[in-house]
């Protein structure tokens, strides 16, 4: 085929145009990212003050107060979620990595992927019917379980991935010395993957820390301090939601402040986790 000069030029031009178009797509995607960060940063910094971290919400109509109970409540819920989600996620991941060639393991892997696609609000409904309804009370415990369920697939797949990065020669060395398999896995493989699994856990926490939907009718919310597992508890995301759809300016101000705190928490965990994970993957390759 003999391509004429002009035809070749046209094809080159199209190629450049498509490249520019694809680059434009990337830029367009970054517009909302920048806008969200700028607004949360700007409005949040203007709204935030010491009261926000130290005080309870004021009664409706009064100006001032803070979200101290929501911040502590969020941390408590996350701790509960870890207590429930991490053992299942990590041990399940150990199984997938070390004994993962069976049909059963393939089914687990597939189901974990499917579970990570189940909407978080559905998980909330599930926990409600399973725990809140029989116990006749919204509770911190139910909220923690809902968040824990959301963590499981993330932690499981990351743990599996990271344990597979541990060189096979290490396992073989331990086994050759007569160490039983379970001790090899726990003390050699798991110990070597420990740092990576920790970053996976950070990512999972970042993923559920901002979850609001599953808490709406499990942990519910609370305008006061609560430390009992059986009582409703306040959380930062739910508080932001309640305040931002309310008709009071002062509540909007506090919603921005809450959003700033939440986004700093989530993004720092997420960015640190992803950077550490990437470094680890590259080193292993």
């Amino acid at each position, binding site marked *: 085929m003999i391509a004429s000069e002009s035809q070749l030029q046209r*094809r080159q031009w*199209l*190629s450049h145009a*498509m*490249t520019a178009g*694809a*680059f434009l*797509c*990337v830029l367009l*995607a970054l517009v*909302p990212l920048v806008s969200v960060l700028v*607004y*949360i940063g700007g409005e949040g910094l203007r709204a935030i003050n010491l009261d926000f971290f130290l005080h309870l919400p004021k009664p409706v109509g009064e100006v001032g107060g803070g979200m101290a109970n929501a911040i502590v409540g969020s941390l408590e819920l996350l701790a509960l979620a870890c207590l429930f989600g991490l053992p299942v996620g990590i*041990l399940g991941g*150990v199984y997938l990595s*070390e004994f993962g060639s069976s049909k*059963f*393991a393939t089914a687990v892997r*597939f189901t*974990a*992927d*499917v*579970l990570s*696609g*189940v*909407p978080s*609000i*559905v998980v909330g409904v599930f926990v409600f*019917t*399973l725990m809140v309804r029989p116990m006749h009370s919204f509770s911190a415990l139910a909220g923690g379980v809902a968040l824990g*369920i959301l963590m*499981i*697939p993330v932690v499981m797949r990351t743990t599996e991935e990271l344990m*597979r*990065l541990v*060189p*096979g*020669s290490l396992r073989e*060395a331990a086994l050759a010395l*007569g*160490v*039983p*398999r379970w001790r090899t896995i726990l*003390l050699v493989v798991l*110990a*070597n993957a420990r740092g990576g699994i920790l970053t996976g856990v950070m990512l999972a926490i970042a993923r559920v*820390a*901002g979850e609001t*939907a599953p808490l709406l009718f499990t942990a*519910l919310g609370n305008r006061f301090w609560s430390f009992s597992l059986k009582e409703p508890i306040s959380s930062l995301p739910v508080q932001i*939601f309640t305040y*931002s*759809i309310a008709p009071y300016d002062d509540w*909007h101000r506090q*919603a921005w402040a809450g*959003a700033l705190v939440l*986004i700093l928490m*989530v993004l720092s965990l997420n960015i640190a986790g*992803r950077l550490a994970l990437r470094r680890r993957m590259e080193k*292993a390759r």
Partner: protein
Amino acid sequence: MIAVSDKPIRAGGRRSRIPPGAFSGPPPPGPSQGKEPAAGGRSRFNADAIFRGITGSFAGFVLLLVAGMATVMTIASMPAIRKFGWHFLVSSTWDPVQDQYGALPFLFGTLLSSFLALLIAVPLSLGIATFLSELAPERPARILGFLVELLAAIPSVIYGLWGIFVMVPMLRNGPQAWLSAHLGFLPIFAGPAYGVGMMAAGLILAIMILPTISAISLEVFRAVPRAQREAALALGATRWETTRMAVLSYARPGILGAVILGLGRALGETMAVTMLIGNRPAISASLLAPGYTMASVIANEFSEATGDLYLSALIEVALVLFGLTVLLNVGARYLVWSTVKRGENRA
């Protein structure tokens, strides 16, 4: 998001620590080990089996969870299923006062808002994935990819807050006012510009699923064998022609999978949509009109639902949503897995 692959991992190349305690357990086989060789051997075998059993049961917990969700929610929605049957999905009356429940407006709202989101997000995501995997130099591609994935890390409720106070006023005074004034005769742009409504919901969903679709497409593109591209380049194809013929067409099933996964995300997305869609259970052709989605009705009414039938109807909405997303996920994962696997086998 972590790319999941089943690639065999090459051993070595990395410093590793073996903790000193690791070998302190059982005595090494040798002359010193003479007391109970048979019993020792058996107990070791048992310990391994027990360990495998324990970790396996934690892994199996995932199966139990998904099966449990289906069962528990089906049982809890039985009163509504028995009362309304299939009518539940095609009736548009949602009236807690009369205890009449039909989920059609929510189904409609969910599907329409998600469809709008796909309409915007799919071309953008494919552009992004193409640029990052085929066209951009490696370093900038990595940084830009990192930033795009950051979009997925922002919590839904924060998108909602931003949407209420930044996006909605902008939509109302800008494009929506213009559309309403000049194209208002078209049914899809009829009615006043509220700001909140189907268009706002579709837009926020597009932003939220964009990182999902582009990350998975990127993974799929990267699994396309190198030889595929080299063949096209050797025939004199330009950069774009190579991408189109060798990469995009090869990755088509995987792209479809990515799109379906994005759709699954959009269907279940709750907070941002609840804050922006206007929450009116009506079916309207206009994109400017408020709507309602399945996820939002659960979010808004669940904790205040009095009456068993009301609650049961809401749980049935959740069950429908669950069924839809599980179906989509199963299909999509299959498509993505098969494309990535095929690439690996040939590479």
